[in-house]
Every structure is written in C-alpha cells, then in structure tokens.
C-alpha cells in the first residue's frame, strides 16, 4: 500500500460521501472536494515522479506496491507508475475536475449521476495505476459498466439504443481481452500476472503470440476506436450527457491506446513486429476516414466524434510505428486529444443546453450572443486543427516526425497519407466555426440566450490553460514520456 492507492480510496470516499449526502449542496461539495483532491494528487504525483527521476531512480516503474489477493491464480493488487501512466493520471484528474463543473446544474437524479460518474472515474484511475493484468482488466470493467447507465438514464436522443450499442461493443472487446489476458498468462508459463515480470520473462512462444496479439490488440482497439469497430463512438457520444462524453472521449478512449501499448505490444513484441502492418493499415484508414466523415456531418457531436475517431486513430497509428519518437508522440496525442476533445464536448454541451439544437444549420452568429463560449470554441477548434502553441501541434508533429523516421518506405508513405488529415481537419473545423459562430443570428429565440456561467467558465478556462501550457512548454513532458517509452520500445525493435 502506498500513496498511489489514494487514487482508489479518494473515489471510494467520494462514493460513500455521495451515498450519505442529502441535498444538492452536499453532493456538489463532495464532488468538488474529491475531484480537487484528485487533481492535487496528480499534480503532486507529477512532481514526485519527476523529482524521483531527477534524483536518479532508474526503475522502469516507480512507487511500486504489491498485495496478493488471489494467490492460486497469482492475481495481485500491484501498482506502479511510469511517465506514461503519470501523464494519463494527470489527464484523467483534469477531466474529472472539469467534468464536475460542467455537470454542475445537471438534473434530475444529480446524486445518482455523480455516484456513477465517480465509479467510472475510479475505474479509470485504477486502470492506469495497475500493473497486474487481472486487476487492470477488473478496473477496465468497472469503468465500462457505469457508462451504460449514465448514457441510458441521463442521455439525450436515442439514448437506449446508443447505450446498448456502446456497452455491447465494448463488452465484446473486453471479452476478447479476457481471452487475450488468459492467453498471455498461460503462454508465459502461468506463474505471474504482473506485466513487468511477464515482460522480463519474455517467454511467450511466437506461435502463441500470433494468436493472442491480434485478440488483445483488437480488444483494446475497440475502445480506441479502431476502424471498423468505431461506430459506437458517434452514437454513444452523441447521446451521452456532456461530462460523460468528456470523460469518455477524453479518458476512456485512451484506455484503448494505453492498453494496446502496455499489454499487447509490450508483452508480445515479436508478434507486434510481425502483424503490426495489418493494424497499421486499419489505423491509417481511421485517420483519414474519420476526418472525411466529419466533413459532412451536421450534428455538432457527430463532428467531434468522427474527429475523435481520426485523432485516436493517429494514436494507434503512431504506436504501431514502433519507434521511440512516434510512441512518445502517441502518448502526447492521447493527452492532447483528451484535453481538446473534452473542451469541445464541454462547449458543445453548453451550447446545446442553450439553443436546444445540435444541428449546425440551425445556428448562426453565436459569437455576438455568447462571446465567451464562442471564443472558447474557436480556440478549441484551432487547437484541434493543430495550431502551434496548443498541445495538438506538439503531439501531431512528434508523431509525424517520429513515424517518418521509420526505415521502411511503406511506413513513410502511410505517414504521408496520415499527414493529409491535417488539411481535412482544417476543412471541417473551419466549416463548423464559420457556420455556427460567424454571421448574423437570424433566430429570434437565440438572441436572448445568455453567456457562460461561472462554473462553465472555470471548466473551459482550466482546459484551455492546460492545452496552452502543454503546447507552449512541451519539452518537460515530452522528456518524461520519452524516457518511459524507451524500455517498451526497445523490446519492440528486433
């Protein structure tokens, strides 16, 4: 037990607090205190991690702790973090923090909503701190199930259909995953579930790897919106309540990329080398295909959902390039996309909450009516299309430069194709901004709408600051990630 377990205990305490809470004020109080504590914890963790590394800690994972909880199957609660998980934990806590403020005025059943929301957050945090395959899988499931209720109860539109589709597809993925995990466990001799130890053993026969690698990769890939298993994303995001979309696109989709890297590729490097190209083509398709699809959508959330497909495709794409710079870029892209897309979903939710429409043809000239939200929207858009100074540029450029350093010409050509997505991104983002923000508002009902409230401003400003901070001074986080990516990638390079 060490302080990483706080990531489980704080949400647990929050759950208890919410359970006992009576009245809206207490519920909000518990959420604010809890999510701020998590944010503080993450910031503290980043500082602790960096100073430990600075002091010369050379272990692959720091702050390790382990407690056996099912000895006969070697299942342990073991935690530990490296640069990648630190970055992901920071991202998650930022999103949980802002998500709390975004759902400030959510009704009805506020208490129950926050209960599920916190449970979801707990699953996410647990996933990122675990280094035990089974515990990881368990937290993964903890994060998935609340999604069904959150969308099904508090969603909008065809919410039952969307909730069902999302849950079933992701459950399908996790079924594959379970098989894959068991395969890895027994393939490596069935002596440990600890990822680091399995990696050290490095004894899964190639023939077995070739079975378990695609299964595991696909299992995580579904969550990472791998083409053609991405269709849950537009429907799910469109129906989910705002903060859930934020958490889902911002963090949950990153579980996919993280898992692909940490489990599938790290533990089965030979198979990854041999079969990577198949998935590389699929992710390359996602990148371009998602961007093109977003160009003609008319629903705000669909645009962003397809944009997420494109950007998350880039994460998996870069991971499969299997070199250090590209993988660093992939983790940066996870961070950057998490922040950007969360901001986008938050703003879309706020606009939708006022205009009661998400059809971009029914809105015009919002800039004059809600200047704060509109400026936020423009910034989010520019960040999304990779403007220097925001995190997107840093991530995309790291990916492109890293990928293009690949020795194989086929990979380089794919990189060029993926690069073209930045132009298409510009097309749909500018189309969106031009349509809904600029011009003169003709809808009388819209003229009376109000601008953002204080809690919405807080959420938007927090996210923008994080994006700009990452975009203006990227080198520290890039170093941190790159150093942690190194050992994993060195396994991959034959």
């Amino acid at each position, binding site marked *: 037990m060490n302080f990483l377990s706080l990531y489980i205990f704080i949400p647990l305490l929050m759950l208890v607090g919410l359970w006992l809470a009576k009245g809206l004020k207490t519920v909000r109080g518990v959420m604010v205190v809890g999510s701020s504590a998590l944010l503080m914890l993450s910031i503290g963790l980043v500082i602790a991690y960096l100073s430990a590394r600075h002091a010369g800690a050379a272990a692959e994972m720091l702050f390790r702790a382990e407690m056996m909880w099912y000895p006969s199957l070697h299942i342990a609660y073991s935690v530990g973090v490296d640069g990648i998980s630190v970055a992901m934990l920071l991202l998650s806590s930022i999103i949980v923090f802002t998500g709390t403020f975004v759902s400030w005025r959510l009704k009805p059943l506020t208490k129950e909503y926050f209960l599920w929301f916190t449970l979801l957050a707990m699953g996410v945090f647990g996933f990122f701190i675990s280094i035990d395959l089974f515990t990881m899988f368990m937290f993964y499931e903890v994060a998935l199930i609340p999604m069904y209720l959150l969308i099904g109860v508090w969603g909008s539109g065809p919410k039952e259909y969307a909730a069902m589709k999302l849950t079933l597809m992701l459950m399908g993925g996790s079924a594959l995953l379970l098989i894959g995990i068991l395969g890895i466990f027994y393939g490596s001799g069935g002596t440990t579930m600890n990822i680091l130890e399995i990696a050290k053993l490095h004894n899964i026969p190639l023939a077995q790897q070739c079975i378990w690698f695609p299964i595991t990769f696909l299992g995580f890939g579904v969550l990472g919106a791998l083409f053609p298993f991405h269709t849950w994303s537009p429907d799910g995001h469109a129906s989910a309540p705002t903060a859930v979309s934020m958490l889902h696109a911002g963090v949950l989709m990153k579980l996919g990329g993280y898992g692909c890297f940490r489990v599938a590729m790290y533990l089965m490097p030979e198979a990854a080398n041999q079969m990577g190209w198949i998935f590389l083509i699929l992710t390359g398709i996602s990148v371009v295909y998602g961007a093109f*699809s977003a*160009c003609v*959508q008319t629903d705000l959330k669909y645009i962003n959902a397809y944009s997420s497909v494109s950007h998350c495709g880039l994460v998996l794409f870069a991971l499969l390039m299997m070199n*250090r710079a590209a993988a*660093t870029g992939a983790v940066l892209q996870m961070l950057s996309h998490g922040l950007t897309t969360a901001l986008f979903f938050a703003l879309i939710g706020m606009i939708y909450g006022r205009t009661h429409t998400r059809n971009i043809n029914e809105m015009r000239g919002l800039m004059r009516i809600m200047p704060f939200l509109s400026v936020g929207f423009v910034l989010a858009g520019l960040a999304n299309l990779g403007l220097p*100074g925001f995190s997107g540029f840093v991530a995309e450029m790291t990916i492109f*430069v890293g990928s293009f350093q690949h020795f194989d010409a086929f990979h380089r050509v794919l*990189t*060029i194709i993926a690069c073209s997505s930045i132009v298409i991104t510009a097309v749909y983002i500018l189309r969106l901004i*031009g349509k809904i923000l600029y011009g003169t508002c003709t809808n009388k009902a819209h003229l009376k709408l109000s601008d953002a409230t204080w809690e919405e401003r807080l959420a938007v400003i927090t996210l923008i600051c994080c994006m700009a901070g990452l975009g203006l001074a990227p080198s520290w986080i890039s170093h941190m990630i790159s150093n942690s990516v190194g050992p994993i990638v060195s396994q991959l390079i034959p």
Partner: protein
Amino acid sequence: MEYTIFILILPFLSFLFLGLAGKWMSHRAAGLVGTLTLGAVAAMSYLTAFLYFTAPRLADGTFATLIPVNFEWLPFTSTLSIDMGVLLDPISVMMLIVISTVSLMVHIYSFGYMKGERGFQRYYSFLSLFSMSMLGLVLATNIFQMYVYWELVGVSSYLLIGFFYTRPAAIAASKKAFIVTRFADLGFLIGILVYSYYGGTFSFHPDSSMLMAGGAAMMPLALGLMFIGGAGKSAMFPLHIWLPDAMEGPTPVSALIHAATMVVAGVYLVARMFPLFIVYAPGVLHIVAYVGAFTAFFAASIACVQSDIKRVLAFSTISQIGFMMVALGVCTSLDPNLGGLGYMASMFHLFTHAMFKSLLFLCAGCIIEQVHSNEMSAMGGLRKYMPVTHIAFLIACLAISGIPPFSGFFSKDEILTASFNFSPIMGWVMAIIAGMTAFYMFRIYFGIFWGTENKELHEKLHPHENPLTMTIPLVILAGITCVAGFIPFGQFISSNGQAYHIDIELSTALTSIIIGVVSIALAIFMYMRPTQPVADSLARKFKELYTAAYHRFYVDEVYQFITHRIIFGCISTPIAWIDRHIIDGLLNFSAWSAYATSDSIRSLQSGRVQQYAFVFLLGALALILLLIL
C-alpha cells in the same frame, strides 16, 4: 545581441495582454499598447540592423551568421528536435526592417482607419500576434521553427481576414485563405519530413555524411515540396486564389499581410534554402522560375480588367511576387557575378515592393474610407479632394512601373538583368510583364484620381483628406519609396554573402524605362479622359477574353468544383454514408441476427412441463441406447 529575443517576446505579450484584458480597455489604450510595443520592436530591429551591418565582415568578405538565442523547445529523437531561437544573417535582418517598418506604419494608420469599429482591441491583439509570428518566421534558426511560425502566420491571417465576422464574404474568404494555404503547408510539412529523413537535421545545413550516403538524390524532392508550401503562402499559380478574396479583410491588414510581409514568406523560404537549391536542385529552381513567370503574367493580365481597386492591387501583388520568384529561379550559381545576381535582385525587390505596395494599399484604404466602396465607378477625379493621397499614390505607381529615380526601378532592373542573363526569352517575357504592370497601375491611378467623377456620390459624401494618423504613414512610406532605390543593396545582401556592387546596365535600364513609359502613355491615352472609347471598344472586340479575365479565368470555379463536387460530393458524403449504412449496418445486422436467432429458438423454451418431460425422456432413452450399444 541576446536582446533580439525580445523582438519576439514583446509582441507576444502584447497579444496576450490585449486578447485577455482588451475587453476592459478603451480603444485608445488598446491601440497605444499595440503601437508602442511595435514601436519598441521597430527600434530594436533598427538597432539590430545597424549593429549587424556595421560589424566588421569575416575574412571571406561575408557577414557573420549570428545565433544569439537558441534553445531546445521540443525534442523528437536524439538528433532531431525543434529549436526556438533567433538567427541573424543579412536576409533575416533585412526582413526585420521590412516587417517592423510596415507593421509600425499599419499600427499607426489603423488608429484612424479602424476608429470606432467594434472589436478594436481584438484587432490590435491580432496585429500583435501577426507581427510576432512573422518576425519569428524570418528569425527562425531551423526549418521546423519556420514551419511553426508559418502556421501561426496563417492563422493570424485567417483571424484578420475574417475580422468582420458578420459578413458572409469575409467568412468565406478567411476560410478559403486558411484552407488553401494549409493545403500548401502539407507540402511544406512533407518536404520537411523528407528533408529531415535524408538530411538528418532540421537545420538549414544538412548533415553532409547523410547527403553523401544517398540523401542528396532526395533533396530536389524535399526542396520541391517545400516550394509548394512557399507557393501557397506567396500565392503562386494555381494556389493564388485565396489572395484576391483575402481583400475582404480591413485594408491596413491587406497592406501588412497580403502585400508586404506574409505573402513574401514563400520568397523568403526559397531564399533561405537557396544554398541548397543551387547545389542540389537547380532543376527545381528553374521550375520556380517558370511558375513565377507564368504567375506574374497571369496575374498581370487579370489585373488589367478588374474594377475593384483592392483586387487590382492584389493581383498586382501576385504578379510582383512572381517577379521575385523568377529572380530567384533564374540563378545558376552562388556567385553574383556569374549568374547569382537574381538572389540579390529578388531580395531587393522584396524590400522595395513591401514599401511601395503597402503604400498603395494604405492609399487605397484612405480612398475607400472616403467613398465607402472598392469599385472604381465610385471614384474618379479624387485628386482635388485628397492631394496627399494622390501624390503618394502617384509615387508608388511610378515606383512599381519602374520609373527612375523611384525604388522600383532599381530592383526591377536587376531582376530584368538577371532574367536576360538566364535567357533572352525570359528577359523579354519579364520586360513585357513589367510593361503590363505599368499599364494596369496607371489604369487604376487614372480611374481613381482622374477620369469620370462620380459627382452624385461625392456630393453626398464630401470626400476629403483623412486625419493625420492616416496620412503620416503615407508620407513616410512615400519618402522611403523615393530613396530606397539608392541603397547599395548589394553591399549587404548577395547570393554568396560578399559585397556586390550594383551597376545599372544601360541597355536593360533603357529597355525597361522605355517599356514603362510607353505603357504609361498607353494608359494615359486610354484612361485619362472622362470617356474611354478605346478601352470600351477593345473590351467589346475581345469580349470573351475580357469576360474570362474579369472572372479571373475561372480558376475559382475549378476550385469550387473540386472542393464541393469532388471532396464533399464524391469522397466525404459516400464515406459518411458507408459508415452509417455499411459498417454500422454490419454491426446492426449482427445485433439483429442475434435477436432473430434467439427469437426463432425461443419456442423451444415453451414453459410446458410436459413438453420438457417428453424431451427429457427421449434424451434419457437416447443416452441409455447409447450406453447399451
């Protein structure tokens, strides 16, 4: 010279300050903050230029390349990283002067021009952003830093073109400008990627061992792709279509971004990579020349028939940038005495053009402010009302037409000399285009200040001279235009860095002067009088040509077709349809088939205990049989 970093930091701070706090500031305070910042930047730039050019030369006769500031901003691999820094060499220092001067003039001018506009503070914060990014672009120490600022320049141009965001035309124009240049930037980015892969670095000097190992063969590709990026920003055919539309932005913005600074970024890029072009990719350099020449001719011919004065100036800008590209492209060696003259000529023309073209735009702004229209039909006879503007406009027109002693003569003459050295055909083509330039410039000059006066409108509006904030920049720029030609430019900038003495070659100079004078005479003959029978009959006689040119040879329509029909109609819509109906359909089909299967086998689970018992019995009997047998 570490202080040079503040040339970048100050405008950035001003951008942040005005952007965040501008809402609570008065117009005057916001304008003052922006202008004073730029004043400080300009002062630092002049100081830098003075110190740089007065410092002793190196032993080989060149100026030292200084990198006072450089730090790693974003590491990629052990060898590749984006560095941010400041690089001082002759061309970047020259660009510093150009940018800070024009930007300062525009800042002052905007006080009067944008007076009382909604979003005044936002306007100044965007101007600061633009100045910062443009300065960062020219001071870049490596190609990737250049790309970073290149993108920022693009976005500030987008924001400024769309400044009047309630006008549909401005929205469309800003979108178009951003997307077209972004498309070109893709070429630039891929070029950088290829360059870094084969050159092993982002710096302007590729790793020689990598080049020896086969990288040199790929350099033409890398440089060619980079040129696509440059062609996009510098509005070379066929990527020029965004520039005329960009005139929807406020006129001072057109003067700053779309005449003097951002649009020459492409020329600057080629000049920056010039040592590589000349050694590894002379063929690509020739392509640059041909593209430049064609664009110059194409744009000049369109400029001859446009009636919107800002459009004429925009096409004129495209044409003049074509001149600069040609000058770079006709270089065949690094030595200015042996075919490398074009490099100096191009930079010289960049410098003089920035001054007189921004002057033209600012004059146009003064006129538009008074008559509230861009169309020549609303003007005519304005010389009586606006004498200062008139004289300034005339000086600029003479300069662009290449009439001595104005600055344009000297730079254009060098370009023509370089072109004649390359091949006589190129020389004559460029000379004719120079003649066309003189013709269309004097066409609008007479259309605005002479010609038929729109009395009705003028009686209503009472056009008069603008306030001092607007006229002082005109006077300053006109002064620069008069004397800039006498700067011994070759002493500072030349293709190999050594001092080069410009001497005017009499035959070329005479040719260009004669062509210029003849064209002006033609324009006087056709357009000076109140009625224009010759021009009208010509327009009637060549009706198709005239209409085609008036519609800018339908290039926009081609683009419209490509984007709307092909990209949206033939790619995006089908993809979205496939996604919703085929891929999602497959998923829904699997869900449906699971449902249908369970529905059909549901009747087995009838709930009738007798049926169950019967099946059970049969099963038991079957098992017994199985065991017995």
